[in-house]
């Protein structure tokens, strides 16, 4: 009798656990997003607003996200891809069109973000945040050494690198590093002319002996604790390194700046994945995030650039005035977004990248 009772109660406990959310009408929004790209604060406010729960999974790279979706990851209502990844998802017909009736706050998006090449007129993608690929550096050390901080020459020219040997990291990304080299040489990041690629390869190989390593994430900590002095990386990461160094009261400060030759701009957008089951909640979330005060969180807490016009007045002056986060109009002219190459070109580039690594 006792065992029967025990069994019954355990079965009902399981049933309760499964059914409770349904009974309470608990609703869940599944979000697949860059790591540390949405502050806890913002999430909690949205959860209170919608009486629902936000379930987040994270990726650290567009390619990772695409690969996992391609391999069958499903159930996500919202993704936050960069422009070229939006294009890839659109070509795969993996996205749901937006219902603009449900997005009254869409009017807040700045005019120059409304017609990207991958989605003119924002039919699928709502811009959320922007980052730049630039140079972060130990400002104290570089001032001591008398080195310039506004040019890619810092990571490519031996005359500067001689003073920085083993203290420089560059991104472990064939597209990003090639883009930096192309910009320094005065070409477009979309360049596919083999002669210019060869030129960029020579430039990289000449500089490589001076670099410490290729790094996509460890540079944040390395900069903040002083292991390295110059890093090629993303503006929001540099912002974090800067804050970390400040909080740890290091005897130096971290700064970041857009090289004068131009750089890569990434615009990350909210898109609705077809695999999601709650487009209604997803729309609610996007509209919430488009509200000026909420949109400003992305800049205030993570140091991302903001495509939202209504957010401007809510952004703290220190961040709004940082040209490494919000580039002035002159610099904007020299920014380019990365677009995907076709498979053949990708393979040739990857072959070149492997060669760069081996030498």
């Amino acid at each position, binding site marked *: 009798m006792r065992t029967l009772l025990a069994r019954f109660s355990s079965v009902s406990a399981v049933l309760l656990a499964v059914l409770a959310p349904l009974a309470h009408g608990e609703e869940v929004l599944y979000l697949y997003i860059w790591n540390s790209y949405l502050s806890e604060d913002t999430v909690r406010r949205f959860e209170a607003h919608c009486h629902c729960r936000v379930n987040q999974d994270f990726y650290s790279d567009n*390619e990772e996200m*695409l*690969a996992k979706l391609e391999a069958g990851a499903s159930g996500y209502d919202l993704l936050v891809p960069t422009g070229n990844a939006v294009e890839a998802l659109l070509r795969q017909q993996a996205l749901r069109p937006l219902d603009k009736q449900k997005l009254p706050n869409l009017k807040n998006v700045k005019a120059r973000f409304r017609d990207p090449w991958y989605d003119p007129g924002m039919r699928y993608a709502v811009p959320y945040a922007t980052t730049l690929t630039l140079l972060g550096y130990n400002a104290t050390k570089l001032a001591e050494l008398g080195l310039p901080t506004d040019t890619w020459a810092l990571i490519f020219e031996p005359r500067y690198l001689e003073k920085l040997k083993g203290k420089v990291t560059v991104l472990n990304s064939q597209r990003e590093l090639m883009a930096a080299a192309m910009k320094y040489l005065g070409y477009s990041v979309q360049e596919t002319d083999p002669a210019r690629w060869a030129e960029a390869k020579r430039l990289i190989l000449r500089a490589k002996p001076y670099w410490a390593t290729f790094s996509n994430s460890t540079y944040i900590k390395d900069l903040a604790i002083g292991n390295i002095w110059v890093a090629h990386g993303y503006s929001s990461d540099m912002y974090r390194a800067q804050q970390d160094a400040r909080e740890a009261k290091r005897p130096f400060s971290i700064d970041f700046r857009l090289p004068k030759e131009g750089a890569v701009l990434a615009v990350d957008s909210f898109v609705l994945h077809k695999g999601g089951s709650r487009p209604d909640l997803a729309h609610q979330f996007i509209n919430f995030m488009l509200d000026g005060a909420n949109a400003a969180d992305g800049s205030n807490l993570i140091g991302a650039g903001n495509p939202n016009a209504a957010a401007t007045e809510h952004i703290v002056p220190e961040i709004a005035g940082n040209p490494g986060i919000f580039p002035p109009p002159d610099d904007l002219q020299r920014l380019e977004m990365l677009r995907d190459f076709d*498979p053949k070109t990708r393979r040739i580039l*990857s*072959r070149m990248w492997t060669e760069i*690594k*081996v030498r």
Partner: protein
Amino acid sequence: MTEKRRHQVSQRDAPTRWLVSLPPTLFLLVFFLAPALLMIGASFQQPGDFGGLAPAWQNGQLNLSLETYHFFFGDWIYAEIFFRSFLVAAATTLICLLLAYPLALAIAGSARRHRHLLVLLVILPFASNFLIRVYAWIILLGPADLLYTPFAVIAGMVYVHLPFMVLPLYTNLDRHDLALLEAAQDLGAGTWTRFRRITLPLSLPGIWAGSALVFIPVLGMFAIPELLGGTRDILVGNLIKEQFLDNRDWPLGSTLSIVLTAAVLLLAALSALVGRPRRSAP
């Protein structure tokens, strides 16, 4: 038990044995063989325009080719990375062996009541996450100016894989019959001779098992070179990871994986052959 009876027993047990070995066999079929076959298929396909694979059947014709294999073998660069990875794996295995052997001997020779504790200490590092332990090496090596060097890669590899060498060695050494050593001593053999003629030959299966357990995972490791290595420390694991997660070239990634798997299977077969217990006593 006579030969005949043993034979009868094993016959009667046969169905049970099959039943017991069914789940692991199924598991291997589903999670090793099926993915391996998928990979072989993928290596003949073309990369898709926006990731994944182009369909194998396109416009009424089969869209398969040896192109990726041509690309792989038409170039010394991939072979060089394979060669380099084998060197790193061999060096790691050798260093692990040299470090683990005395340790395993010491544990096997310690008082029985301490042994469990000592073995527990060897596997204790597994209690914390692998990546966190590797990050700890960044902090250790950073100030010593050894971070981002080949030394850092080998140090990290040895550190992570050492327990995999210690455990099989210890298991083997623990079972040695001490009477053999005593007899040898009585017959006038010195410490070195006893080790060389008795302990070492008897421990060969342990050495082979430990070496395989270290060598093979090191060959596919990508996290350690990525976190601790410098600008030249690319191993085949990194290369494969790049094809899938950075470059969206599944066919090339599959081809690299297949060549690696083939090389590893070949080595495993070789080591099984060499490490097989001898039938007749010397």
